[in-house]
Every structure is written in structure tokens, then in C-alpha cells.
């Protein structure tokens, strides 16, 4: 802190002048950052700048058309070295600016600068493209329930939510930004389809749009109208996303669809139901992982046993969402992308408990001849480490969770007293094309085949991280019960960061995940308790 004070006193630059945070310029709807394919800022779109001293302490919004290039003494310039344009602020505050990128902004790498009372900020590089769609979300995190309205009549268009799902065949109005440039950015748009191909994906199905262009009356904001197919999957979190010009894919959001439009049934999935209901929710998952790493220099088969110990207070609500439990319907896939190294320790959006964690004390997992204890979980997945074997280091094997019977005992904590459970660890399915998958080709899609697991929930989960730009992408596909194959479509893979051919700079992994059934348990201190043994087979892969 002393150094910080020195910095402020010595330079005066850090503490008073406007400052744009590094990588702090993002699509206003998706929040996707610089390093993701859809992290470019589209001409004519709404974008957000995060920083400090960017404007007045109390936020100011533009109130009338035509919009100006200055608001509350805040203005911006964007330059590629030869051409300079002025973005149009629609909201300014000390920590955040929302603005419209002029449609005549040169594409490619440009430099953005903010001026507050004529004092310039640091320049910040951004990437500009003609199209880069982002869907607005109810939680404002770029993931989860989209801002989408169910069209009932011209006077009745409720926002889609867990309590107001759509039904198959219904027309929907989806709110987004980044479909493309228009002739005027600072006037109230009259509407009209933009001259670019826009597709809506519901589940895995591409749906033609009924309208795709500026939302009449809302500069920088797009509206996409479409009809949900009659055979669309139903569920509380059906994936919905956009693809523009056949190439650029938006953030993947969700839409609640039920057969008759009634509220999402809490019995849909046990974990999802617990999330929707809120309250004190305990989720335990004994987990074995077998990861085959055939790069960078030699093959090594890593095995580790964990217990996911997630004791949390969750908020209920019409837009409840958590990537761990808000799974897409069987037969569909979802995807996430954003800032951070999600393959190591950084949390993905909305993955943390909604209202804090609960203390259940240490956990001990025991078989008839061995046991392991951990005192506290780590990582955003709430992993408690039980044992491992890592041939790169030693042949010593401390694993525990071979298929069979186990007991699990909590030592008791401040929130949840001691309790004991029994569970059966499952055996792995046979991943029949595992040895053939060392690369994920994003434009070709990916098919994973296996045998076994007919009575289990099987999923394919993959992800990649690009370290220099500090971004990650993850996809999740749920197999229909009894299936032996999943194909991940190219749009779901579109925003995975590609590899750099260097494991120190990028990494990727593909998992075949099987869950052996989610069973409830009751104990004091929890409203809902669930336990599910999980077996994960993984390949370290590269993404192209």
C-alpha cells in the first residue's frame, strides 16, 4: 500500500486521470473479451469500457436523440493510425462506459482512448469487425438466461424465464448487439433487416429468423425474431445462440421451453431443481479422473480421485443459473467463453454459489481397506483431493475410488453437523475412439463414441485456454440416455481459443464424463442434499 501511495503522489497519472483496464473493452451483451473469436467489437454495436476515472461518480445516461459524441464531458476516440472516429456514449460513469462503435470504424486492430474533461486515458487496443454478435443476458454475465421475450400478442410479450417459459412453436424476440453496421448510429433506428445472414440456434437446430436488425427505437441494439421449432427440445436451460454471416458465433445463452409454457418443473433434474428452489444445497460427487496426456513430450496416464464437496447457499429466482447444474437438455450442447484460465483455477461466470458457501467440516472417504481425508475443497469445482498416481513422478499409487462400495463421513462444521453416507463408485465406460482424438478441429466438429453406460448420464466436456490472452472456452454436451455417441457441432466449438502449439502458452482437454445417478440424502443444515459418483476419462488435446 505504501508503494501505491507513492505511485499516486509521484505521478498523478494513476490516481486522477482516466484509465482503461487492460482487456477492459468488451461486447456490451456477451462480455466476451479480446482473445475470443467473438470478442471483436462489431461496427455499429454497443460496447462496454471498464476502468477508473472514466466519468462522473454518479452514472449519466443519454436521454434523447440524436446522440452526441460527448456525454457529461466524456468522449472517446478510436484510431487505426490514419482514420479517427468518435464513439457515441450512451452511459458514462467512473467505472464504466457504454457506447456505440460508429459503423464507419475501420476494421482490424485499432486504439481506443477516453477523454474526461479533455484529460486523455491510456490507449487500449481493440479488435473491430463488421459482425460480432452478443446476446444480452438476464444475469448480465453473458451466460445463462437470455433477454428474450415470448410473443403472446402485440401487447403481451413477457420476458422468458424459468417461471415464464416459451412453448414449442412460439415466436420469440431476442435482444442482442453486433449484427452489423448501419447508415446512422446516433439516431433512433426505424428498423429493417440488416443485409447479413443471421441464424438462430435453438438446441442444435438452426432456425431461420423472422426479423434480424436494429431494434426500432434503440440505437446500437439489435432484435432477432424467430419461431421455436415444434420439435425443439424442452427444458429450463435450452441453449440459444446466434451465428452471423455463417461464421461468427455469439455467446451461448439459454431459453426456458416447456411443452405447454408452464413453469419449469422442479423435478426436471435433481440438481437443477435444487438450484431453482434455492436454499441450502449440498452436492457431493466422488470423482475419479483418468487423463491420457500424449503431449508435449511423452505419453503419461494420470489418475486422480477427488470428492466434489459443494455446500452452498443458493438464491432462487426466475433467472437462476449455474453452469455446474444448469445442464442443456439431453441431445444438445452448450458453450461458455470468457476471461481467465478456467482449466486451472479461475472461475467461469456464475459458477460460484449464489449466496455463499456452507461449512460441513472435513470429509473422509473410506473403503474396507483404505481411507482418505481432506479438510477443505479447492478450485471453483470445489474439489477435495483424495489421492492420485502420476507416473511422471512416481509409481506410488494413492488412489482410492476403484469401483465398489465406500462410506463418506463429514466431520461436521459450523453450518452442517456431522453426517455419514454410503455410495457405490461406478466403473468407466469404454471410450472406443479415444486414441483417435488428439485434436479438436473447430470447423469440422467432433464425434465421441463409447460403449456401456446405458443407465448413466454421459456427457462430453471439453475446453481450451489461451494463456497469453488469458481467455478460455468450454463446451458441454449431454447424451440422450442410452446413446453411444455425441457429435459436437462446429458452432459450439467456434469460440474455443485455438492452440498455439506450445503447452506453456495454450492447453486443451476433452473429457468423457459419466454420472452414475443422482441420489438424494438428508442431513441437518441442508434443504437439499445430492450425491452422484462421477467417472471422467480425459485426453489432453489441441484445438485447431
Amino acid at each position, binding site marked *: 500500500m505504501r508503494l501505491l501511495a507513492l505511485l499516486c503522489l509521484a505521478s498523478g497519472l494513476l490516481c486522477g486521470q482516466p484509465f482503461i483496464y487492460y482487456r477492459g473493452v468488451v461486447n456490451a451483451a456477451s462480455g466476451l473479451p479480446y482473445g475470443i473469436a467473438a470478442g471483436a467489437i462489431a461496427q455499429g454495436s454497443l460496447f462496454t469500457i471498464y476502468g477508473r476515472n472514466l466519468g462522473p461518480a454518479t452514472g449519466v445516461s443519454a436521454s434523447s436523440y440524436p446522440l452526441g459524441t460527448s456525454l457529461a464531458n466524456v468522449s472517446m476516440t478510436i484510431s487505426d493510425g490514419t482514420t479517427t472516429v468518435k464513439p457515441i456514449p450512451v452511459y458514462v460513469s467512473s467505472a464504466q462506459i457504454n457506447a456505440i462503435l460508429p459503423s464507419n470504424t475501420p476494421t482490424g486492430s485499432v486504439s481506443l482512448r477516453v477523454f474526461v474533461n479533455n484529460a486523455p486515458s491510456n490507449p*487500449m487496443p481493440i479488435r473491430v469487425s463488421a459482425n460480432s454478435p452478443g446476446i444480452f443476458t438476464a444475469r448480465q454475465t453473458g451466460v445463462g438466461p437470455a433477454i428474450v421475450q415470448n410473443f403472446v400478442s402485440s401487447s403481451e410479450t413477457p420476458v422468458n424465464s424459468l417461471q415464464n417459459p416459451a412453448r414449442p412453436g412460439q415466436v420469440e424476440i431476442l435482444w442482442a448487439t453486433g449484427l452489423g453496421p448501419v447508415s446512422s448510429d446516433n439516431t433512433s433506428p426505424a428498423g429493417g433487416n440488416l443485409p447479413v445472414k443471421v441464424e438462430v440456434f435453438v438446441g442444435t437446430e438452426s432456425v431461420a429468423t423472422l426479423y434480424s436488425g436494429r431494434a426500432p427505437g434503440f440505437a446500437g441494439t439489435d432484435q432477432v425474431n424467430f419461431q421455436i421449432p415444434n420439435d425443439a427440445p424442452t427444458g429450463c436451460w435450452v441453449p440459444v445462440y446466434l451465428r452471423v454471416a455463417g461464421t461468427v458465433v455469439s455467446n451461448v445463452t439459454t431459453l426456458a421451453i416447456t411443452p405447454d409454457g408452464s413453469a419449469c418443473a422442479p423435478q426436471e433434474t435433481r440438481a437443477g431443481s435444487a438450484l431453482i428452489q434455492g436454499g441450502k444445497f449440498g452436492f457431493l460427487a466422488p470423482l475419479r479422473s483418468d487423463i491420457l*496426456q500424449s503431449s508435449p513430450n*511423452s505419453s503419461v496416464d494420470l*489418475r486422480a480421485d477427488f470428492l466434489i464437496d459443494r455446500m452452498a447457499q443458493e438464491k432462487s429466482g426466475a433467472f437462476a443459473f449455474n453452469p455446474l447444474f444448469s445442464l442443456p437438455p439431453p441431445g444438445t450442447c452448450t458453450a461458455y467463453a470468457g476471461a481467465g484460465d478456467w482449466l486451472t483455477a479461475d472461475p467461469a461466470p456464475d459458477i460460484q454459489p449464489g449466496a455463499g458457501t456452507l461449512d460441513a467440516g472435513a470429509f473422509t472417504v473410506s473403503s474396507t481397506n483404505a481411507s482418505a481425508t481432506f479438510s477443505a475443497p479447492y478450485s471453483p469445482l470445489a474439489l477435495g*483431493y483424495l489421492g492420485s498416481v502420476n507416473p511422471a513422478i512416481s509409481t506410488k499409487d494413492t488412489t482410492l475410488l476403484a469401483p465398489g462400495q465406500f462410506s463418506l463421513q463429514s466431520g461436521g462444521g459450523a453450518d452442517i453437523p456431522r453426517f455419514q453416507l454410503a455410495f457405490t463408485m461406478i466403473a468407466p465406460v469404454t471410450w472406443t475412439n479415444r486414441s483417435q482424438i488428439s485434436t479438436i478441429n473447430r470447423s469440422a466438429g467432433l464425434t465421441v463414441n463409447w460403449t456401456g453406460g446405458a443407465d448413466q448420464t454421459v456427457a462430453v466436456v471439453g475446453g481450451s485456454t489461451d494463456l*497469453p490472452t488469458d481467455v478460455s472456452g468450454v463446451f458441454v454436451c449431454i447424451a440422450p440416455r442410452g446413446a453411444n455417441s455425441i457429435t459436437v457441432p462446429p458452432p459450439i466449438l467456434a469460440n474455443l481459443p485455438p492452440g498455439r502449439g506450445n503447452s506453456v502458452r495454450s492447453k486443451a482437454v476433452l473429457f468423457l464424463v459419466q454420472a452414475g445417478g443422482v441420489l438424494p440424502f438428508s442431513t441437518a443444515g441442508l434443504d437439499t442434499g445430492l450425491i452422484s459418483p462421477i467417472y471422467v476419462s480425459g485426453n489432453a488435446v489441441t484445438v485447431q
Partner: protein
Amino acid sequence: MKRLALGCWSGLLLAAELAGQQPPGGSSNGSVLQQQIEQLEQELGDGPKSVDVHLGPGNNGLCAVFVTVVNRATGASNGFSNGLAFDCKDIQLEFRNSPLYVKITIKPKDQDQTPFPFSVSPLDPILKQLPHATPGLETKPVVTAARPAASSDPYPVVLDLPLAPPLSAGSNTNLSTGCDPSRQYTIYRVNHYADNVMRFDGCPLQLTATIPVAPAPLQAELTPDNKTLLVTSYNNAVTFIDTATNQVAYTLMTPPDVYPAGIAITDDGRLAYVISFIDTNAAVVIIDIEKRSILARIPIPAAYPNSIFLAPDGATAFITHPLTNQLDVFDILTSSLVTSFSFGTPHAVAFDRTGTRAFVSGGTGITVLSTATLQVIDSFSLGGEPSNMVLTPEGRYLLVEDYASTKTWMIDLSSRKVVTVDTGLSSPGSTVLQ
């Protein structure tokens, strides 16, 4: 500087062992050798074992540790040897069979007896070795990336993946010891007063070329394809060395008021950013590497900029001013200064893999800055004079060289534990790792 490869880290682990210290990240049995022996014992199956450990001449003419394990019940045996970069007379072996105990220590040695001081570590204290003609000038050694390793590499690199054995379980460190031919390194050492660059190839470590360059060379950097080494010379030049031939391919003379010192090269290998170390008219000079010409000269307001460090994504660079206690942040895209602020004797900057944190050595410690906000988010007090740094590839350990001694600090960024490693060799610049 930024290309520490796993082999170097492994060497450092060995160095820690040689110094009789517990290598960080190692398993609780404390010794790489012990771990390897225990692995052999397991591979030989059940039954009583006997172990023999002795020193002898290795393939490289230096000393090696020879280990043999025999299963006395079955008669089966197996063994291995680890080459050491020392003469056997300089090494002391302590060994007990039961309970198993192996310790190797380097005997104290007169610094003048060191045949030649070189290092495969980016932490090479070359700074100390060179008498400073111009006060405060610092050099940066260059280490090439490892060659592609053979598929049968016995020391697999374990990636930092989700659901893999966690670091705390002892994984994610490559415990290769000795001279491993599959991890070949090339080391370039800038000799300021001799006006040359020495090239060493590892395994066995040997001097392979001495390349004359423009007078008063200071720092060097390799292009990403390892084909060209650019060497800055304070006497108004940048020398281009063809690493395939070890010959000077071109000498770019800079304007007479440009004094090349620090250098950084972009990931695409197109541009070199060279610092002009001077009190007035200091600058960043941008060089088109392919055309071997100066593209631009960007003034730096503060005096004596010394070194430049590119962030991993190449969007920004940090410039140190150790003589005038200032740190600059430079925007690569717009070729303009983002901001400058006071910072006590900044020597070097290392970025984490995601570029979200910058570790700045200066004063008697390390300051951790958020690259997003440029605010201080952490610090480590070390003492001495922390200077050159490198972050290990998996991002867990920050290795910091002490400008004032032969010590190297290893900071475990997970536990915040600081381990001080002294190789036991007191001659300047004689840290021999691998």
C-alpha cells in the same frame, strides 16, 4: 529471459538437492535420487532390496552418480546414472542403505578454479560478472527453447489440466536430473568488454563459438524461430547473428544519439523494441527485423531506460529505469507511452502466463502489479538486490536472482514460501544448472 524451459527448472531442483535443500514441489521423501531409487524398487517387485550408489566418470567426462538396485529374493536388478556438471573430486556423497538416505553436496571451491563461468539459467548473474562501463547498464542472457523432445522421454511434462493430480500431490514438475540429451539448450552469453557473444551448447556443456559483435554489447534476444540473435551494443549498433552459421549476418548502425541496451522481440518475430539508454533523448527504437531497418523512434521522457519486457500477448511492454526509479508502460499498438510511475530501482519484469500480473524486481523485493489496473496487489520482501527473474512454465514458482550474491530465491506463488538456493559456487556467474 522469458524462455526458461523445464530442463532448467529441473536443473535448479537438482541444484537445490546438491545444496542439501529440499526441492520445492518434490515429494516428501525429499530427494529426487531417493525417489528414483524407490521407483526402481517398486518396479523390481516384492522382496528385500539392496541399493548401491557410487560416483564415477560419466559420458561427458565429468562426474556421474551410478545407482543399482537388486531384488535379493529374485536376483533381478536395475539401475540408472545421472550425469553431474562437476568433477567427482568436488562432490561429496553420503549414502545409507537402510533407511535409504542419499545426499550429494558440492564441496566448497575456490572461485578462481572455475574453468569458465557460464550458465544455462536465465538467472545467470552475468550482471555481476561484467564490470559496468556505464553505470547501471544491465545485461540479459538468452536461452533458446528446448529442442522437440523424443517421444520416449522418460520425464514426461505434466500439463496443468483440470482434474489432473494437483500440484500439491507433487506433480507438474519435471524431475529430470543430470544431462539429458533430449533437452538440448543453447546459451548465448554477451561479453560486454570482450565485444563478443559466446555460444554454449548443452549436454555436454561446451563452448561452441565466439562471435565478435559491435563494441560494448549489452543484451541479446532471439527471434521466435531461433534463427537470428539480435545483440544490442551501447556503441550505436544492433548486431544480427545467424545462429545456423554463428556468423554476423548484419550490423545495423543506429543514429549516433541512440545507445542500444534493452531489447524485446514480438511473438511474430517481425519487430524488435530496443531501448536507448541515455539521460536525454532516451527512446524506444523499433526495428523491422526482416528489413534490418529502423521503423520508428519513440521518445521516452525519463532518463536511462534500461530494459524492456513484452507482455505475453504482445500488447504492452514494461520499461525499467533502475537509475531514475521509474517504470514505464508502453502501448505496442500505438507506439506510445501509456503511463509512467515511480518505482524503487526496478530491474526486471516477469509476467504470469496470462499476462494478468507483472512481477517487478526492485529495491529489496518483488512487487506484484495487476496489469489491468496497474495497482499493487502483492509483494514479497527478499532482501539483497532482486534482479533478473523468470516464472517457471507452469506458473507456480518465481525464480529471482540476487544481484548482490550468488543466491537465487524461489518463490512458491501458491504457498508464498520463499526458498533461498545457493549453489555453493561462489564465483561470479558460475551457477551451473542441468
